């Protein structure tokens, strides 16, 4: 009866892929994500372009002369006392606020106040506070009477950027950036989390729909329940695969074509050299670029690397999806309406949430025991492993995790089919977990 499964897969697939919402999420989502990630920079760029004028009343006479105006803030020194200044500036539209610095500012750094007529911004406050801090620090240092203190401080200052090179790989020891990997990992983990929850719920919902509209009854007189279950799961899996594939292609296109096109030439050159095995730290110093950014860019722009990661993501997504959707389908088959499902879905959702929480720990250490075991245990492995992969994981770990995952899936489908078979003809009473267990043993 392979033909039947094919027909059902086809129906499930068409029903979802030809929907407008699918096309929108598939195409628009990645664009939205790119926009979202660019948003903070854009906002910084455009939002605070106005220069704020601040009138300074400095009773110590130490700070005010050394405050530097810039494009965000312009300082005007007032010789009046604070009360007069406040009255005088209150009529002045151009004036944004009054900064009042106390006499004992060096000893008591908290004795500074900013009066504003409208709400000030965090950036403005930080800017002013840091300028005052600088002055106070240098004044305090001066009190120690050390000669050439400024020069000494300049020389002492050091900025360290660690370049991580992997030595355990057989391939060329590609420079990998821990930050880039963990961010990519986090995004992938997040993506998996959503795919499992959303697509799982989708399967559950559509089983409930088939049950409550009694389509199942029409179908099971010609199709075996197992074929129905598998057809649905595989059909929806195919939809998920298409979606991820589209995203993958978009990302690869982005990394291979679009990003390089917008990149300044010297950075692009350096990136290519780093990808070719050059020393990122050295290059960065020569080109005056942040080495961390350079390594990050070189791994993002490494199309082969991206494609490999996406292939892995696809394998784990499919495994995780098949595993979870079989469970969701079993729940869907045993209830009459979506509201009744909540109690039964809790045991399914918990491991997904645990996996998501563990994913956060990967940033700290992608090889800690809890992260390792969660990437092996089938119920958390899809999310956790996918989030670990960008950090570079030994192939045997990935392979073991995949085998365990797919084996568990087969087991789960077998169990889910038993529950499904009985559940689809149970109407009326709301089943409990114990009922499901009884059906499973049946």
């Amino acid at each position, binding site marked *: 009866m392979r033909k*039947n499964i094919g*027909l*059902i897969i086809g*129906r499930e697939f068409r*029903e979802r892929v030809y929907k407008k919402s699918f096309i929108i999420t598939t195409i628009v989502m990645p664009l939205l994500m790119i926009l979202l990630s660019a948003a903070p920079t854009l906002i910084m760029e455009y939002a605070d372009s106005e220069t704020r004028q601040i009138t300074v009343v400095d009773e110590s006479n130490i700070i005010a002369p050394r405050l530097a105006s810039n494009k965000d803030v312009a300082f005007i020194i007032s010789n009046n006392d604070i009360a007069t200044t406040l009255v005088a500036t209150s009529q002045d539209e151009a004036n944004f606020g009054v900064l009042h610095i106390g006499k004992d500012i060096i000893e008591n750094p908290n004795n500074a106040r900013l009066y504003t007529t409208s709400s000030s911004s965090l950036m403005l406050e930080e800017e002013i506070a840091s300028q005052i801090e600088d002055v106070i620090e240098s004044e305090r240092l001066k009190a120690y009477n050390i000669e050439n203190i400024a020069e000494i401080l300049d020389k002492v200052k050091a900025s360290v950027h660690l370049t991580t090179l992997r030595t355990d790989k057989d391939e060329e020891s590609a420079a990998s950036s821990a930050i880039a990997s963990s961010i990519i990992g986090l995004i992938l983990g997040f993506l998996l989390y959503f795919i499992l929850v959303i697509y799982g719920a989708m399967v559950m919902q559509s089983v409930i*729909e*088939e049950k409550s*509209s*009694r*389509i*199942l*009854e*029409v*179908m*099971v*007189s*010609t*199709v*075996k329940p197992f074929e129905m279950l598998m057809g649905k799961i595989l059909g929806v899996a195919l939809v998920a695969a298409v979606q991820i594939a589209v995203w993958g292609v978009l990302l690869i296109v982005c990394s291979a074509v679009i990003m390089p096109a917008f990149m300044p030439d010297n950075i692009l050159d350096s990136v290519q050299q780093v990808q070719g095995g050059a020393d990122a730290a050295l290059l960065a110093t020569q080109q005056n670029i942040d080495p961390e950014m350079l390594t990050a860019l070189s791994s993002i722009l490494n199309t082969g690397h991206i494609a490999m990661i996406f292939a892995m993501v696809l394998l784990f997504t499919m495994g995780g999806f098949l595993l979870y959707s079989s469970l969701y389908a079993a729940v869907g088959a045993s209830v009459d309406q979506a509201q009744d499902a909540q109690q039964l879905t809790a045991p399914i959702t918990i491991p997904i949430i645990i996996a998501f929480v563990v994913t956060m720990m990967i940033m700290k250490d992608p090889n800690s025991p809890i992260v390792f075991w969660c990437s092996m245990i089938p119920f958390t492995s899809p999310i956790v492993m996918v989030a670990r992969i960008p950090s570079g994981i030994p192939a045997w770990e990935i392979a073991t995790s995949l085998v365990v995952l797919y084996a568990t899936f087969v087991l789960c489908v077998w169990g889910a089919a038993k529950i499904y078979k009985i559940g689809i*003809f149970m109407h009326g009473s709301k089943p409990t977990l114990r009922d499901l267990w009884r059906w499973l043993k049946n």
Partner: protein
Amino acid sequence: MGNIITAEHITKRFSEHIALDDVSVEIPRGSVYGLLGPNGAGKTTLIRTINRITLPDSGRILFNDKPITQQDIFRIGYLPEERGLYRKMKVGEQALFLARLKGLSRHEALVRLKEWFVRLGIESWWDKKVEELSKGMAQKIQFIVTVLHRPELLIFDEPFSGFDPINANLLKEEILRLRDEGATVIFSTHNMSSVEEICDHITLINKSRNILSGKVDDIRRAHGGNTFAVQYKGDGKALTERVQGACKVLENEESSTGFSTLKIHIERNEDIRSVVALINDTVEMRQFTETIPSMNDIFIQAVNG
């Protein structure tokens, strides 16, 4: 002709109750077979057992005198009582999908579907979504899908519910036409008038048991209780007195203007001809008929008795 379905001592238990208790049914090939019974009697469970949706705890089902297999299911068309279609799917696409699940090729399914849509005058529905159809319209689609693969055996669970009289009649004609083309039809119903009109055999199930089975005519006659109605013109009193000894007078409805009606009960061993002769002697007899109870009466009597 033989039986297309033989159910032998079927018992099916659910956790709390027994749905079928040693039910045996024989369904002759080419018949229109009615499964009757009050709600919850076990009709749907019996149908599901025949369909192999549920398996009996004991007993067996024979299809054409051989134990039924999954392959035989393709020779059965089943229209469940609580029927459904995918609401978001287009009518034509859905009909095609269901037809192909039943083993028809795409081309074959398309040809037959078009034929049916034309016959029922619903070609314009092809590209409509199911959710745009009324309940009765959706049921028509389901009926078509059920019979499309020309199964030997058709099972309809409450096929007339939800149809207006015109469409119910249309459906009845289609069912009879399918029978004439050689299909056997089983249908379950509480609608007794439809039973009298189209069923030739019935089984009455009550409280999980088969309490009455057989040809509709035989059953009605058997439940007739040998009562007869006589329509006459003449002296009613004299008539009653005259026949008193030969039979039992149940009722004598006299009418001064037209014809009066006498209802009598003749014992099985009495000679009907002698009673008729007595009547004929006394009054001018217009009609002498056996009173056969309706299926409705039999149903109520059987279930309550």
